[in-house]
């Protein structure tokens, strides 16, 4: 399997051999000065891309840029003595990710879902339910939603002033439908 090892050339061996302490000091690695990463200014945006999803009868949306991943909802690992709206955690490729009941957090539901713990104590996971893994300041957080609708490009002008709770960042209309834009950071 291994490629035959090439013996080091005479020059290489001599270099190591004739090494003397003060001939040479280690060359310094050339590192880029800190804080010099290429910074691309975001172009002035006219539209905003949001992911819309359903909670009960209503339609909500959050900035698409915050969504890391959409998972088919599944039973979670129960956290003992967890306070609602925490539903449990899931192991997302090695990162332990908490999942929250978004409907409960927004006050749309009274009772938390039972989706963690032993099978006999769980309610079945609805076929359409999804977990939106979102980026937050303190690491990824999962939001349990009833169903995912689609990605909507909203003209900035179509977004109205927020009303209805601190987590709401704006209201937008699309045809007969009302989209409630939320900030996941503020919900939790």
């Amino acid at each position: 399997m291994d490629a035959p090892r090439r013996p080091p050339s005479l020059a290489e061996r001599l270099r190591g051999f004739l090494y003397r302490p003060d001939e040479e000091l280690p060359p310094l690695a050339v590192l880029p000065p800190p804080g010099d990463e290429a910074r691309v200014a975001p172009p002035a945006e006219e539209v905003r891309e949001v992911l819309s999803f359903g909670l009960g009868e209503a339609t909500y949306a959050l900035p698409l840029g915050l969504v890391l991943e959409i998972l088919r909802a599944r039973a979670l690992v129960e956290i003992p003595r967890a306070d609602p709206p925490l539903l449990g955690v899931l192991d997302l490729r090695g990162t332990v990710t908490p999942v929250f009941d978004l409907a409960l957090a927004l006050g749309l539901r009274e009772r938390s879902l039972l989706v963690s713990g032993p099978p006999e104590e769980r309610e079945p996971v609805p076929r359409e339910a999804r977990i939106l893994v979102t980026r937050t300041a303190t690491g990824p957080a999962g939001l349990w939603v009833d169903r995912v609708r689609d990605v909507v490009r909203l003209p900035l002008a179509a977004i109205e002033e927020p009303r209805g709770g601190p987590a709401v960042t704006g209201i937008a209309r699309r045809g007969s439908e009302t989209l409630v834009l939320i900030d996941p950071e503020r919900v939790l």
Partner: protein
Amino acid sequence: METAEALGRELARLEGGGADGSPGTLNAIFRHAHSLKGLAALYGQGGMEALAHATEDLLDRLRLGRARLSEPVVDALSETVELLQRLAAAAEADPDPVLRDAAGEQVARLEQLASGPERVGSDPLHRLDLSPALRRVLTEYEEHRLRETLRRRALVWSFAVRWRLDDFDRRLPELVERLAPVAEVIATLPGHAPDDPESICFELLLGSAAGEDRLRAALAPDTGQLAVVPARKRRTRAELPGSLPEGPRTLPMETEGSLHAAARTVRVDIGRLDALMNAVGELRLIAAGLQRLADGALAPGVRQLPRAFGADLLREQRQMARRLDALQSGLLDARMVPLSQVFERLQRLVRRAARDAGKELDLLARGGEVELDKLIVEELSDPLMHLLRNAVDHGIEAPSERERLGKPRRGRLSLAARPEGSHVVIEVRDDGRGIDSARVRQVAIERGLLSAHAAHAVTGGPLYRLLFTPGFSTARSISALSGRGVGLDVVHTNLARLSGVIDVESALGVGTAFRLTLPLTLAMMRGLIVRVSGRTYAIPLNGVVEILALGSEPPRVVGDQEIIAVRGMPLLLVRLARLFRLPPAEAPRQNVVVVGLAQERVGLAVDELLGQADMVTKPLGTRLGPVPGIAAVADLGNRRTVLVLDVAAILGEALKKEPPRAARSE
């Protein structure tokens, strides 16, 4: 930051090695100072660069023998390293003006030390009969070593040797090693061109105080021309070198590995290792999936697939699992670092603390080569620092007091690590005044931790455990170093985070020993898998003391707590189902897992024991924050994720309600 630390490490060796620094150590220090200067310049840290430059300057003079290595020099260097580390730590933020001024002062001090009087006298090198051609190719360092050899009245020898081309690069290090007890290889120079194209010639300059016979014996089996490089005698001295009146003194040898050895280590961000570890975890799941497929294909009654397919699949799966094992253990190894990383930092600190406190002591560090998970080693420096400072400030008595007590004037402080199974035990021991039990009881009563009645019943371990209570301090004077009784509290918290255990042993007037028992790694752990109300949990096996079946006799109920008797001793029983507010299960027969940390024990009642498992643990993550009673999440394979119990937290929670300890206002 790490370069500064490496610099400090070498410096500690210098301090340990007396005032006569070996050339290897000095060279190593010089190299670190040089790289530090370059790095500082690269990042535009002006103050740091100037300081590193001054350090390099001073070291260069020491190295070349132009300045003498004295106590003030070592002290100044040692303080410089600390200053450099602080500068490095502050590099992110705005440079603190106080720090900047301190750096400026230190530069002036180093410059003054470096400009000290040079050694005078005629250059002894002129007395040496070396050809001008040879003299020209010698580096300044080699010249210095030659001078040093003459100064010690040893002889300089020349050894012309011919080696075969295919093994010469192995022969030289072997020769250097063989010569080490009797001679120093000062220079390796290319020799005359050989007539044989298969060989290569070298001329070595050796410094040796040993006689020719011993030298020849050490040179064998390498043969060549050995000759003394004649040195003209100094007129005032009659005796010849070679027969030294000083006795069999050997020259300091360069045993230090060269730069090439240093390049064999690679620094890896622990986050990257974690990512690899996770990749292994994912692969494991795939392996488990493959196995399931293979099992399915091999099952009797399966028609669609040839059975050979199942067998092939299974074989592949086993291959993959084996490789995964190797990969996983390799990754775990990569996380291991020697304890010396933190020991050396501590030695410097103790030295300074002792000076500031006016104590005289020797610190013995042993077991620095013992390796532990990088994360554990890093977290250990704080607790160990507190224990050592405590020993210096409160343990070891002032020199005069020690003499009055008939003890040796210099105190002994030891820091020793040794592996013990899957654990490492680190002991901090002093021969100071020991813990005054009466004083501990008195403070405990004053602070309302114990009733006077209860206090007198407590002795030994449980009594010493009070020292780890937040805010507890028995020192009559609060020293600037040890702070205000926060030390031992920090030790306890940090250790619990590392699933470590601390034991105290003390005898009044004789000394105190703190023993820390730590797991080798946090990433991999052996756990006892238990079932409670249909849920599965893992209990770290290092916290498990014993396992009992809950007898038919009902537990005694005291207040809202249950107590069982184990071999006549009362044991607090914690029903996990109740603690975690789980629906009760109708388990026919409960088991009790006795868990313990230090002197504390409680029994955890569980429904069922499922066995033991090696687990790769993962932290709960920053978003969730700490969850009471849960330390981590672990993967049991086949997509089963379990929670790992936090034994220390559960103990703490259970014992907080314990009746004998009077309720504190919280």
